[in-house]
C-alpha cells in the first residue's frame, strides 16, 4: 500500500460522502460506511499505509486522514439519523387515523340567551357598584301601581295590561315594584339593579305574556338626567358595540319625572333604515327618567334632598337584537335545535 497524496485523499473523501448521501436505506448506508471505514475500507487502509509513507510526510498525512475520517463519520451519523426518522414516520403512518371523522361528543350544555344577556347586563352594573335586588312576581296593587304613582281609575293603568290573580293581587307588570320594596328598606345614597320576569295580558305576534326586564335605580343628592344618559350610553355600547348611538324621546311614566323613552341604533342597518326598524334606523329599547318625588316620598325618602334616576328595558329585546331573532316567541320555544344554537 502506497501512501497517498493530499489530492488523492480529498478525492477519497468526496467519494465517501457521495456514497453516504446516496444511501436510501439503513443497510445501504452501513454498506457505504464499511466501504470507507470498515476493516477493508479505503480510509482504514490508508491509515494502515501511513507507516509506509515518507517519514517527513507521515505526521501531516496522519492528521489529514484522521480529520477526513471524523468528517465522514459526522456525515454518516447525520444521514443515519435522517434515515431512521423517516423509517419511524413511515412506520407510524401505517397506523394513521382519518382525522376528518367527527370528534367524540362531549355533550355541550347551553345557557338560555336571556340568561346570557341578563348576566352580561348585571355584570356591567355590579361592576359600577350597583347591588342586586329581588322581589316577588305576584305583587300587590300597591307595590305594582299605587306606590309608583299610578292612581286608581287613572288611564296610566291602561299602559300595562295586567293579569290579576284570585284574591286581588296581580302578576307584576314590570320590575318596578322591587324599587318600592328596596327603597322602603334602604337609606340614600344607593344604587341597585333588579332583573326578572314580568307579565302583561297581551299575546300577539310581537308580544309575549311573559318577558324579562332589567331595571336600575340610583339615588343620591345630585345624580342628574345627564348622568342617566351617560350610564345608558356606556351600557348600550358595552352590549352592542362602541358605535351604537342612543336617542332619548320625551315620554310619560307615572313613576319618573322627567321621563324618556330611549332607542338604540338599529344593529341590522347601523341606522340607515331597514325593515327591522321600520325604516327609522332606531329600535325602541326602554324607558327611563328621574325618580318621581312622590315615589321617593312613598318610600319615606326626603324628596327635597335626594334625587336620582331609574331606567328599565327588556332583556328579551336585547337578546333579539344580539342574536337577530325574528320574534320574541323563539325564546320561549323549547326546541333543542334552537336552544343549543344561541
Amino acid at each position, binding site marked *: 500500500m502506497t501512501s497517498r497524496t493530499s489530492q488523492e485523499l480529498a478525492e477519497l473523501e468526496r467519494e465517501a460522502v457521495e456514497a453516504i448521501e446516496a444511501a436510501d436505506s439503513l443497510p445501504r448506508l452501513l454498506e457505504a460506511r464499511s466501504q470507507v471505514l470498515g476493516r477493508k475500507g479505503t480510509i482504514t487502509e490508508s491509515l494502515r499505509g501511513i507507516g509506509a509513507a515518507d517519514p517527513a510526510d507521515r505526521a501531516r498525512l496522519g492528521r489529514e486522514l484522521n480529520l477526513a475520517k471524523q468528517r465522514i463519520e459526522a456525515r454518516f451519523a447525520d444521514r443515519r439519523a435522517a434515515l431512521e426518522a423517516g423509517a419511524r414516520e413511515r412506520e407510524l403512518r401505517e397506523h394513521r387515523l382519518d382525522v376528518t371523522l367527527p370528534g367524540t361528543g362531549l355533550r355541550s*350544555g347551553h345557557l338560555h340567551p*336571556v340568561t346570557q344577556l341578563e348576566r352580561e347586563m348585571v355584570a356591567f352594573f355590579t361592576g359600577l357598584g350597583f347591588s342586586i335586588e329581588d322581589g316577588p312576581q305576584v305583587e300587590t296593587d300597591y307595590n305594582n301601581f299605587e306606590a309608583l304613582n299610578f*292612581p286608581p281609575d287613572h288611564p296610566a293603568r291602561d299602559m300595562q295590561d295586567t293579569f290579576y290573580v284570585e284574591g286581588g293581587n296581580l302578576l307584576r307588570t314590570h320590575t318596578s315594584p322591587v324599587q318600592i320594596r328596596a327603597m322602603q328598606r334602604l337609606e340614600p345614597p344607593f344604587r341597585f339593579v333588579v332583573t326578572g320576569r314580568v307579565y302583561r295580558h297581551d299575546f300577539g305576534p310581537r308580544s309575549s305574556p311573559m318577558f324579562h326586564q332589567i331595571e336600575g335605580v*340610583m339615588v343620591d343628592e345630585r345624580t342628574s338626567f345627564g348622568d342617566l344618559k351617560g350610564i345608558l350610553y356606556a351600557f348600550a355600547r358595552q352590549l352592542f358595540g362602541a358605535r351604537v348611538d342612543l336617542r332619548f324621546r320625551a315620554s310619560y311614566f307615572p313613576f319618573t319625572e322627567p321621563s324618556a323613552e330611549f332607542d338604540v341604533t338599529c344593529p341590522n342597518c347601523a341606522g340607515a333604515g331597514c325593515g327591522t326598524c321600520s325604516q327609522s334606523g332606531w329600535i325602541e329599547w326602554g324607558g327611563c327618567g328621574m325618580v318621581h318625588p312622590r315615589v321617593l316620598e312613598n318610600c319615606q325618602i326626603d324628596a327635597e334632598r335626594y334625587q336620582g334616576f331609574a331606567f328599565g328595558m327588556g332583556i328579551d329585546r336585547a337578546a333579539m337584537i344580539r342574536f337577530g331573532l325574528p320574534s320574541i316567541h323563539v325564546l320561549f320555544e323549547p326546541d333543542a335545535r334552537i336552544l343549543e344554537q344561541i
Partner: protein
Amino acid sequence: MRLSLQWLAEWIPLEIPPEALAERLTMGGIEVDAIERSGADLSAFRVGHVLEREAHPNADRLSVCRVDTGEGEPVRVVCGASNVAAGQKVAFAGDGTRLPDGTAIKRSKIRGVVSNGMICSEVELGIGADASGILVLDDAAPVGAALSDVIGSGDVALELSLTPNRGDCASVLGIAREVRAHFGGALCVPETAPREGARAAKDDVRIEIEEPADCHRYAARVVHGVRVGPSPDWLARRLESIGLRPINNVVDVTNLVLFEFGQPTHAFDLATLRGATVRVRAAREGEKLLTLDQEDRELDPDDLVIADAERAIALAGVMGGAETEVRAGTTSVLIESAHFAPARVRRSARRHGLMTEASYRFERGVDRAGVARAADRVARLVAELAGGEVCAGLVEATGAPAETVEEIQLDAERVNRVLGTAIADAEIQALLSRLDIQHRRARGGGDAYRIPTHRNDLARPEDLVEEVGRIYGYDRIPTTLPVAPLGPVHAPPLRAVAEQTRDAFRAAGLLECMMLPFLRSDDLDRLGIGGEDPRRRTVAIANPVLEDEARMESTLVPGLLRAVHRNQTRQIDAVQLFNLSRVFFARGGSTLPEERVAVSAVITRGERVAWYEAQDDRPAPFFQAKGVVERVLRDLSRPAEFAPEWAEPYHHPGASSAVRVEGARVGSVGELHPDVAARFDLEVPCALLELDLSALAAQGAPRTAYAEVSRQPQSSRDLAVLLDRETPAGDVLAAIQQTGGTQLVRTDLFDCYEGTGVPSGKKSLAFRLVFQRHDRTLVEAEVNRLVDRVVKMLGHRFDGELRNAPRREE
C-alpha cells in the same frame, strides 16, 4: 289619534315638511307612529257645471252631458253614473289629466259619441270609497276652479300615540300649541261666538247637578229651527280625514268641535226631553239606558247619567241615549258641554266596555276653561250649517270646582340640578312661556309659574322641569357620568345558588329552556299529584289569556314533559333540558303566595352506563339524571344523599329517590312513570330531577376549606361480592367506608352484574378499595387486615360472599 295636517295648518303655520314635524313632535313626547299620505294632488281637476244631461243614443246606462268647465265652450262628456244630473257641480278631468291611479284621460269615442273628458267619482279621485256614482260638489263651488281649492288635496295624516298625561293634545288645538312651542308661530283659533236670537235659552231648560263632586260644570245651548241633513263637503271630508263617518250636520258639528278643542259635546233632540230640567245624577238601581250604539245597558249606581224628568238620557261623558238622539226631523237641539270628573267617567266606560272619543278625553281631563267655548262653537256651526236660531245665553250649573294647581314655584337651580344642565333663568322662562306657562315673581320671592287651564297634568316642580327639558331638547342635555362612592355590592344569596346551578347544569351538558310559566288545567291530574299535596295550592289567574292556562306553575315538570313532546314531534328524541324558574303556592285570601326558586331537568335516552349490564337501555337516563344531581350538588359544595323511596307519584316506583342534603329533602330524581309518559304522549324513556334551590339557599353557604392531601403511596384492592339482588349498593358502599375507617380513602363501585355465573336472586358487585395514610407507607399486612375486616363485615351484615380472593392493584 289621527290628525290631518291640512286641518292643523289652518290653526298654526306649518312651514316644515311632515317628516321634520313628526320627528320634532316625537322627540318632544308626542309620538308619531306613522305619516300617511292620503289623496293625490287634485289641482289638475276642475269644478264643472253640468248644463244638460241626455240619454246616450246607443247605450241605456250611459248619458251624454254638456259640461261648463270654465274655459271656452262647454264640452260634451259621456258619463256612466246614474246619479249625474243637470245643474250639478262636479269634478271634471279634461283631456290629458292623470288620475291618481295613473290612468290618463283622453278624448275618445264611447259607443259612437265623442267624450272630451270624464266626470269623476270619489274612488277615481282617490279621496273616498264611494264608487256608486259621481262626486257631487257643493252648489257654491265656482266653475273652473281647481278641485284642490274646493275640497283640498294631497293631505297628510299623522297617526299619533298620546301618553295618558297629555289629554290636552287630543285635539287640533292641543297639537297646534305643541307645534307653536317647538317652532313658534301664531295660533289661529276659529270664531266661536254664535249670533244669538231674542229668545232666551233659560226659558227652555234648566240644569241641576245632583253629583257636584263629579260634575264640575255643565253648560247648555239651545238652537231652534234646525234642518237636519247631510253635512257640507268640507265638513264630511274633514271628519273622513281623521277616520270618522259623517252622520248628519248636527252630530258632525259636535264631532268636529271635539277634535278642534278636545272638549266633547253632545246634541239632544230637545223635543224628546220630558220636562224642562236636565239633571246630572247617579243612575238608579236597575235603571236602563238604550245607548246610541243600540245597546240596552243596565246602569250601575256608580254611573253618572244625564237625565230628564223621567229617565236617563245619556251616560255622562261616555255616550248619549238613542231615544233623545238628533235625527232627520229634529228641529230643536240642546247642546251639552260639561266637565266631568275623570275617574267617574273612566269607571263607567270600563264597566260598560265603551271607550269613546268623549270618554277618552274626559278620563284624561279636559280644559276647565273650555266648556263654554265648545258649546258656543257647536251652536254657531249648527246655526250656520243646519239653519235655526241660537237662543240667547248659556244655561249652566256648576258643581264643586275641580282640584287644580294654578301656580308652581320653581327655581333655576332645581331645573339644572335635576337635568344636569346650566340653563339661564331667562331661558327657562322663555322655554316655559312657549307653552303658555308664564313666569311671575312668587309672593315670598323666588320664581313661580302660572299653569294654563288646559295643562292639568302639571302639578309639581318636576313637571315643569320636564317641560323645560323636552322643549330645550333631551338631546342637548350634556351626557355625564355620576360620581358616587365605591362600596361592596350586595346580592340576594339565592342568586348565587341559582347562577351556580345554571353553570353546573350547563357543564353537565344540559340545555336551559324557558317557557310560559302557566299550568294547564289537567296537568296535576296527569302527574297523579293528589289533593293534599302543596302543589295543589296553585295561584289562579282571574283573567287568563287562555282559559286552559289559568294557573301559575307549582311544578316545572309538566312544562318540561311538553318540551320533550314538542321535540319528539320534530324527531328529536334525545334531549336533556333544564328549567330554572319560580314556582308559586297560594296562601289564600289576599296574602301574597309563597314563591320558591326551583330547577327541574329531564333527560331522555341517556348515555349507557359502562358498568351497568342491563337488557334494555331503560336505566341509562336515570343514572345520568342522578349523576347530574351529584354533580350539581358537588358544584354547590353540598354532599347529596339518596335513598330508595317512591319520591314522586309520577316517578316509576322502581326507579325513584329523594335527594337529601344534611338530612333535609331538597329534591328528587326518578324515572318517569310509564303511565304518566303515556298521558303526555311520550315515547322515549325519561328521567326527571328536581331541586328546590330556595331550600338549598336557606341552608346557608357551605364553607369550602383545604384538606391536606397525602404524599404517601397508596394500595388498592378489588373485591367482587355476591349479594342478594335487593341489597342496596349504596348501603354496602357506606358500610365498607365505615368499616375501612380513615385509612380507606376511596371506595369505587365499578361493576354490577346479574346473569350467567351469578345465581338467580343474586347480584355481583365489584368494588375497588384504596388505602393510604398521611404519615407513612402502609405495609401489606396492615392493608390485608383492613380488607379482612371489610370482608367479614360484608358476610356478617349483608350475607355477602366473596367471589374471589381480593386482588391487589398497584
